Every structure is written in C-alpha cells, then in structure tokens.
C-alpha cells in the first residue's frame, strides 16, 4: 500500500517551547547562522514557531503556530524549478534534490508559507555542534535551497527495515524529529492512507483546518484549532 505522509499540528496543545526547532536542527544538520546573519534574515529553521500577539497591554495573549513545509499536493515550488530540484515523490512528499539545485530561489518566492531556505554561505557549526552531525543527512553547500523533508531519512530507514523483515510499516514505529521531541504531543506524524492511524483520526476532527487553504496548494499538514483563531468565541 502506498503511504501518504501527513502531520497534524494541534495548536491548542502547542506551548511554543521550540523543542521541535532544536530537534529538527540536530536531526537534519541545519547550520547555525549567527546573530548578525540572523538579523539579516538568513537564519535557517526547517520548522519555526510563529508568534502572534492578540489584545493590548496589559492583557496581551500570544498564540503559537509551528510552520514547516506543508508538503503540498499541488506545490507551487515544484513547477517553477527549472532543473527538477524541487519535485514530487511517488509517496507525495515534496522533495528537494540538493545536487540538482542551481539556486534560482524561484521556489522560495513561489512558496506561500515561506518555508524554503537558501544557503547564503557554506554551512558552519559552532563548536562542539560540529561533532553531532547526523551521518544520515547530507550537508548543503552554499547557493542551494533546503527545507523540511518530513525526516525522509527516518521514513526510508523504517521502510527498508520493514521490507527486510517482510512486513508492513507499523503505526508509531518511527516519527519525525520534531514530533518525537514535542512535550505536549502537539505534533503528530503518520500515514494518512491508513484509516486507523492517529493522523487519520485527527484529520477527521472538526477542529481540522489547513494553512492558507485559499491559495489552493492542498497541503499535507493539518492544523487543529478551536475557532478563536478566526475571532469566534468557543
């Protein structure tokens, strides 16, 4: 059976702790930018926690929204890439082939979620971070785009393992780094083609929405939220 990888982000659970950001950085060899470059907007974080403030002082309220690549079915980044570096895998993932990327950055412009990141310099890690690089994930050189892969290295490892043991993937056998690290379990990863999976169950929730659904990208990430985001009272 084909898989349809999906993530559910429960905004009502998210505490904005950013453990997902750190876990992703460690898992996927995301380089650090440093203060100056971060101030220039060159920081890379495949998943970011967006903060939006509501209300006025002295009663402000902050809302968090983790935003990662939405792995769109109709991804605007794919058709614009002149070299097929951004392409659609048979499992519906939105892959970035680093070796093919020549750095037009068109995909970054076309992405409505602004989740595609450009390597403005060759990657560097402050010591001792350079000692904890993940050998399963390639390092990206200067001049190419990168983005969230849904931890494709973990998906592939689990699939190979299952194939070696001549069995199907088991629900919960693996998950992405961000979902694994999330203390309140706000991030859930799984196979949408399996009707019994956790993500399938959550996708049927009446709290389920998609981010920027009006752009027509058909994202694979679902957000769970009570109506207050839209200004409604619960």
């Amino acid at each position, binding site marked *: 059976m084909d898989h349809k990888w999906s993530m559910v982000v429960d905004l009502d659970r998210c505490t904005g702790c950013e453990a997902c950001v750190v876990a992703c950085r460690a898992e996927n060899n995301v380089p650090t930018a440093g203060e100056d470059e971060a101030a220039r907007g060159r920081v890379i974080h495949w998943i970011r926690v967006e903060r939006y403030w509501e209300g006025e002082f002295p009663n402000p309220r902050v809302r968090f929204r983790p935003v990662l690549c939405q792995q769109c*079915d109709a991804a605007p980044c*794919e058709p614009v890439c002149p070299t097929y570096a951004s392409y*659609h895998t048979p499992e519906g993932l939105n892959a970035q082939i680093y070796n093919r990327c020549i750095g037009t950055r068109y995909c970054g412009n076309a992405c409505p979620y602004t989740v595609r990141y450009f390597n403005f310099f060759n990657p560097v890690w402050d010591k001792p971070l350079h000692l904890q690089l993940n050998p399963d994930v390639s390092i990206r050189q200067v001049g190419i785009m990168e983005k969230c892969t849904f931890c494709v290295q973990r998906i592939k490892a689990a699939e190979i393992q299952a194939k070696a043991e001549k069995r199907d993937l088991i629900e919960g056998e693996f998950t992405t780094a961000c979902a694994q690290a999330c203390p309140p379990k706000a991030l859930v990863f799984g196979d949408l083609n399996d009707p019994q999976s956790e993500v399938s169950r959550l996708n049927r929730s009446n709290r389920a929405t998609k981010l920027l659904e009006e752009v027509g990208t058909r994202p694979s990430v679902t957000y769970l939220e009570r109506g207050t985001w839209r200004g409604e009272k619960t």
Partner: protein
Amino acid sequence: MPKKPVIYALCPDPEAAQRAVEGLRRAGIEARNIAVVSSEPFEGYEFSRRDHQTPMPWLAALGGVVGGTSGYFLAAMTQRSYPLPTGNMPIVALWPTGVIVYEMTMLGAILVTLFTMFISARLPNWRAQLYDPAVSDGMILVGATNLSQASRIEANRVLGEAAGGQVKEVGL
C-alpha cells in the same frame, strides 16, 4: 584554368547603368553573363529586378514548422520518456509545451531565413570576384562575362557608350 576575360564599365548613374544593361542584352549577351554591382539596391530600376524571385518566405515558414515540431518533441517526448510524478498534474502540460513550441517555431524561421539568405546571396565568398572599389563612390559597375570574340567587340562598344568612359578588362 585559363582566366576568362571580363570587361566592365563604371556607370555614373543608374540611368546609364540601365542603358548599358539594355545595350548588352541587345548585343545578344545572355542575362546570366551580364553583371551589375552597385552600392545601393536601386529597387526602382529594371536592372535590379533580375533574380528577384525567391522562395525565402516559404522556406522560412517551413523552417518555422520544423522548429515548432522539434520544439514539441523536445518538450513532450522527453517528458514522456522519463515521466516524473507531478502531484496529479499532467506529465506533458499543454501550456508550457506551447511556449516552447512557439519559441522554437520562431527560432526555426529565423535561422532558416539567415541561412537561405547567405546561401542564395552566395555569401560568404572571399575569392576574387568582379568588383571595383569605385562602386563605393556611387559608381555602378556593369560588366559582361563569358564573351565570344564577336560579342566582346560589341559589348565593348555598348559599355563605352553607356558609361561615357573607358571600358576596363580584367581576367578572373
């Protein structure tokens, strides 16, 4: 190969050139043996209208068809022969293929026009040809080639009359 004698005269104006050409023709010299060289097209004169027929526009259109077809094969066939998943979108998309076909059509027409022009105008040709630098001063060269002994005398007379000056002889 022995050099063939060629005689020519430099006419000061297109009317004289026209008279010279007509004279040569009356003298029985075949049209293909009458040479005219000028520094302007002189479209208004009969002598400039020889060799006017050319299939160049049709060849250009043909080049467009060939270019457009190759554009279609380039875009459509290569995508079909190595199909990549596109997220439920067509492997060969109509619109982009149309853009490639359009540009290749125009490129084909342009290239064929360029090559046809060079080939049919017999360019480039760096060998010695019947020419006189005085053409650049506004003179029009009218000459006769492949002459027999009889027609040579006649041509000499006609050219001398029309050009009102001396007739030159060169070997090519």
